């Protein structure tokens, strides 16, 4: 016993010492965040020789990282290969909270548009917001960013998706220096060869990063490099690709040279990381399929569709409005909602990234209820009775929602009152210096939180009011026609999530139903002129299992995902988490159905080709023994990663589990920190909100297909689980990083954050255990 105690004390002492050590001398981090940069492409061109110089085509990447640093060659996005979710994981080290580039709340239609800078800049200028939508959501769910690890005076964060505050001087000084940093001769040359204004911002950011590197105070600096993603979406030719890679290489060279010349050269780590890869092939154009038109059409359900940007943006004058976050595409073929697109949109689409579409459909029963009430309003008594029966079947669930949401709103209201006091007590005026030091950002953050909570309070209140009306509807009201459909059916809401059975029998009009699994996977392109590209735009569909469906399987899983390729090629992904360890099992299936009570039945089928993710037939699958046997067993996420990461769909099995996993809230959030007894209720509210943004359908595009409708992305796309899209870049060089090391063991983006904390000395091996990702041990000295 005594011995044990002594051991514990020794452990604690070591731990304390290591914490002190870690806190005493943290290393400086300079992070280049390259959007969409695939590891394989960088590798290929870093190895290639430039005939003009006899050196690597990317001499600095070769010098800094390949020869004098470490390269994690099998580094993958965990989840869909999409910027907002991917950066959120890299920047927090936590399981996914954000799962799309735009998210919609099913109850309130609140839009979380993570990519649009313009509304944020305007709101920041008006002092109503401090952060981009991404950090706001992460703050509310209790997760902090890497940049939050450093006090404001020790960090420099460039413009990016998870941006805190706005460096207004970048715009002002950037514009001025775009002119003044060049000789008249250079300006004339640029004018004649094509003047571009965009470099004004990027050049100024680089100047400020350089300034930070030259100083001694900044411990964290980052530079967000967006060009690769932008260029390669549009063009797949080698010249464009090499051009943008050389630009990145030159940036690496300048930053590295500045670090070498800085007083902290010995304790600086330069990092190059990307959020995802890019499916681009010089010989194949990526083909688009317009899902908006499909959902608008009668065969797609005649939906009024909402999306976050105008389709065919470049051809519309109104698309010049940069503040748009919600656009409606009305259907002329709706069977029961003609002309009601503004009040009753029935499909919400997130198409960004383009190799996948995340789709909310209005709850099928809500559609049916509206159709019945419309008929009841026209004195169809049977329809009225059916409507009441339908409401009755929902009574328990809806009553529970009403009760819980009202409880949550009451707690939220108390939170709003507390927050209002905070906001009222804030300093409102800031002088120029304070403004330059961005001291006005925290008050903006408080105001933004208040505004967000008020919005949720109103939004959720509006939704439960509709439910209350529905629950109080009586037969006499229907007989006396004492009701209005638009006062009973929630406007601008999708209602409850659709289950598998709803999506298999989705109501699109009186007596008309559609099976979306079949409808979407049976889509075919007429003009398919490229060899090796399937005429089938949709590869497979993934849908979360609802609790009743999961329970009916009795499989010992915490949650699950249904994957559909066609009726004969389906699968269930079953996921469980024990002591922080995620395990996954893949169950091949066929003809899966769910009855109205939620019970799932399916034909068990053996492993074979053409199952979703196509692991069985993939020659790169690395398992011991018989493939089918191995694939049918439970395995940890690490075991799966080692086995599948080189296959065509790579870590898709883990990505799907991550994407459909539950929301894990952090410990501290402004929302509940000072809420006292309201904390559990407010936590539940936050979980509810995150649950409401989960989509019904995740539709994955076939290889070289995309769902972009804003314009055309023939160059390449990402968003899928293809290896080419999830294989991203991670390279480090500098203080304490092994030289010339190429790490073959696979890791995913959840490892980035704890690894950076370890190599920089910001956290000890004990402290990083609080994060779910593995530290990349090969990078430690």
């Amino acid at each position, binding site marked *: 016993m005594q011995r044990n105690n002594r051991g514990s004390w020794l452990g604690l002492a070591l731990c304390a010492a290591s914490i002190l050590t870690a806190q005493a001398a943290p290393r400086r981090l300079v992070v280049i965040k390259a959007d969409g940069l695939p590891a394989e492409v960088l590798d290929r061109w870093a190895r290639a020789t430039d005939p003009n110089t006899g050196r690597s085509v990317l001499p600095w990447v070769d010098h800094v990282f390949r020869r004098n640093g470490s390269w994690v060659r099998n580094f993958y996005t965990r989840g869909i290969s999409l910027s907002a979710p991917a950066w959120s994981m890299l920047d927090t080290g936590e399981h996914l909270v954000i799962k799309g580039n735009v998210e919609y709340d099913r109850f309130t239609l609140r839009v979380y548009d993570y990519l649009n800078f313009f509304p944020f800049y305007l709101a920041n200028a008006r002092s109503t917001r401090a952060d981009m939508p991404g950090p706001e959501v992460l703050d509310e769910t209790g997760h902090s960013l890497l940049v939050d690890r450093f006090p404001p005076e020790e960090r420099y964060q460039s413009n990016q998706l998870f941006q805190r505050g706005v460096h207004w001087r970048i715009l002002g000084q950037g514009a001025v220096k775009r002119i003044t940093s060049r000789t008249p001769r250079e300006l*004339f040359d640029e004018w004649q060869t094509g003047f571009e204004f965009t470099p004004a911002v990027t050049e100024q950011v680089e100047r400020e990063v350089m300034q930070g590197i030259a100083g001694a105070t900044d411990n964290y600096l980052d530079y967000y490099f967006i060009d690769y993603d932008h260029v390669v979406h549009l063009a797949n030719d080698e010249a464009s690709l090499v051009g943008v890679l050389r630009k990145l290489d030159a940036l690496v060279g300048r930053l590295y040279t500045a670090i070498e010349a800085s007083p902290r050269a010995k304790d600086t780590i330069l990092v190059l990381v990307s959020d995802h890869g890019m499916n681009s092939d010089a010989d194949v154009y990526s083909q688009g399929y317009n899902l908006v038109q499909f959902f608008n059409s009668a065969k797609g359900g005649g939906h009024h569709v909402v999306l976050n940007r105008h389709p065919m943006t470049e051809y519309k004058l109104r698309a010049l409005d940069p503040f748009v976050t919600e656009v409606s595409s009305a259907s002329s073929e709706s069977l029961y909602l003609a002309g009601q697109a503004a009040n009753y949109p029935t499909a919400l689409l997130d198409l960004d990234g383009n190799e996948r579409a995340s789709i909310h459909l209005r709850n099928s029963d809500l559609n049916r209820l509206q159709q019945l009430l419309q008929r009841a309003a026209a004195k169809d008594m049977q329809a009225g009775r059916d409507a009441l029966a339908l409401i009755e079947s929902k009574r328990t669930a809806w009553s529970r929602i009403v009760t819980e949401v009202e409880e949550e709103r009451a707690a939220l209201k108390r939170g709003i009152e507390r927050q209002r006091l905070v906001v009222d007590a804030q300093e409102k005026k800031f002088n120029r210096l304070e403004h330059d030091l961005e001291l006005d950002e925290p008050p903006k953050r408080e105001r933004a939180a208040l505004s967000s909570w008020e919005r949720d309070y109103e939004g959720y209140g509006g939704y439960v009011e509709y439910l209350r009306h529905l629950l109080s509807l009586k037969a006499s009201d229907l007989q006396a026609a004492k009701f209005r459909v638009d006062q009973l059916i929630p406007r601008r809401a999708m209602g409850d999530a659709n289950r598998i059975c709803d999506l298999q029998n989705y109501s699109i009009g009186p007596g008309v139903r559609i099976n979306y699994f079949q409808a979407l996977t049976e889509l075919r392109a007429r003009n398919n002129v490229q060899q090796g590209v399937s005429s089938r735009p949709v590869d497979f569909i993934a849908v979360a299992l609802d609790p009743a469906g999961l329970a009916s399987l009795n499989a010992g899983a915490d949650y699950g995902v249904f994957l559909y390729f066609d009726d004969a090629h389906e699968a269930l992904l079953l996921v469980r988490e024990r002591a922080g360890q995620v395990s996954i099992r893949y169950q091949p299936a066929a003809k899966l159905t769910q009855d109205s009570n939620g019970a799932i039945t399916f034909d068990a089928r053996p492993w074979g080709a053409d199952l979703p993710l196509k692991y069985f037939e993939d020659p790169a699958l690395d398992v011991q023994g018989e493939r089918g046997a191995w694939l049918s067993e439970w395995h940890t996420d690490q075991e799966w990663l080692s086995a599948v990461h080189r296959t065509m769909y790579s870590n898709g099995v883990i990505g799907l589990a991550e994407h459909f996993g539950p929301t894990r809230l952090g410990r501290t959030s402004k929302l509940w920190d000072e809420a006292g007894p309201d904390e559990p209720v407010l936590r539940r509210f936050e979980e509810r909100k995150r649950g409401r943004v989960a989509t019904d359908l995740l539709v994955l595009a076939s290889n070289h297909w995309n769902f972009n409708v804003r314009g055309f992305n023939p160059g390449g796309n990402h968003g899928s689980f293809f290896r080419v899209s999830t294989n991203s870049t991670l390279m480090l060089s500098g203080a304490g990083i092994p030289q010339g090391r190429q790490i073959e063991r696979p890791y995913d983006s959840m490892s980035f954050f704890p690894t950076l904390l370890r190599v920089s000395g910001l956290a000890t091996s004990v402290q990083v255990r609080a994060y779910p990702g593995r530290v990349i041990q090969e990078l430690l000295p």
Partner: protein
Amino acid sequence: MKGCLGCMLFFYIMLPMLAATGPSSPDPVIASPLLRIERLPVAGGGELRTYFRRLPDHHANGLEIPLVSILEDTMGDGDPANDRARYVYAFGFARPTLWQRFSAAVPFLYRRAGGDRRRHPMPAPLIDMAAPSNGTIPKIAGAALQSSYLDPLGIPYRASSRAYRGRTSEYRDMNVYRALEVLRSAPPEAGGFGEEDLARIQGRLVLSTRILGGLVSESAAPSAWIKRRNASAMNLGHNWELLRQRADQNGLEFQPLRIGSEDTNFALLWVRADEPKHAFDSRFLGIGDPFSDARIRDWQGYSETWYFDNYGSREESGEAGAHPVRMIPLGLYALDHPKAPLLMIDFRRPGKLKRREMALRFSDDVATGVLGFTGWGNLPYMATKQVVFLVRGRWGAPVSREARVNAYMQLRQGLLMDRGLPEPLHHELVRNIDRLGWNPFEEGIGREVKIAESQYRALAGETNGSLARKLAEGREREIRNELHSGSARAGLRAATIATFGIYRHHDELTPERLAEVNRIRRDSYQERLQPVLAVLPPRPTVVTSAGAAQ
């Protein structure tokens, strides 16, 4: 001692040149599947590098067309550090006849004028790479003369002078686009150029179409080409996909084509003769509804037979289950065009495109030539025009004349170079595109080939004559900067202008001076390379373990 040194220098410089003045034996190089490049030695230490295209077999067996020549001053050695591209020639770009000049001055005449240009076979260079700014002052002076002197004289003078100047400049630009298209089709090394050198030539060509482009510095010239090339790559993919999707939505068949290029640069839309009636939206297509068109039902024009399986996928003939379908061409589209594909041929209305172009030009000519609305001279007109262009351009209308002319020249050049199209389709496209010509200086494709041949023969015959002299002149100009001060050079130039070119100053090219030219070039080469080398990391000195750490 000094004399000895002079002799040594003379032999050092001149020996390789003398060696290069031997018999002019062609040195054939296969550049790409599309082109052959011939390198003819030029007396005095240069090379005439000519890009040839072998005509499609169905035109003539083994016949080649010369397309572009570049006169390269190599100083007679094999060192690329002192090489200089001198002149770029586009064969077919010929001195106009008197009749053509007269026709070009006739406002609202939108057709070719014809005439025999073979009497003056020596081609004029498109650009003098040693003095790219040469054309700038005449261009500015011309514009000034036009607005300050000719415009106020009244409609006849204004309209005809503007028509003439516009067509002259457009004719030259057309040939620049043609040369660019040819140079793009071959890898740089095939022509004996470094990537950067060829980009500089292409950049200079691009800049030569802009009034002040000749004044752009040497180091910035390649970026003019790189930006154009990148924009072109984006256009090709964008329009390929736009057209494919529009074909899908409209029940048409999409066929991408590589016409005289390694890139997919054009596309055809077809309709199946057995296609049932389909909703049709002509946006971005610019053609009428084929499903309600009686001409489709009784189609007498060009058609093909394709084979489809029962699911509607195209198959090779002879495949099991494949059935034949008669396909009727609707439109040929250029993909390298901003915003949307450009309809080049409407097979049902062959004259439509010419009328569209004529209408656009007519409205422009009325505004400038007749009404005297001349850009900066009439700000409300210019503002209105810009707004209209912005709105129409945003909707995908082809508002850029430069882009339309470029697409037209790409198609002409492509058809000249193409080997892959079936002969009847090739013939049909040539027949249609030949109708389009609107510039009096232009020639039909057949006549242009003949002009090109005679121009090439004339040029190749001058490898010991005027081309050698041109090399010497270029070197003289280079050394002149070293020998004379800026004011002295201005004086010499003024003397040339004052004597209407009768007096031209010459600096004799002694061996010392040639050595100096050589040194200047090498220094300049190092100077160009310096920024590239300066930002390179140090060469690796330590071999590190690249083994995987598991």
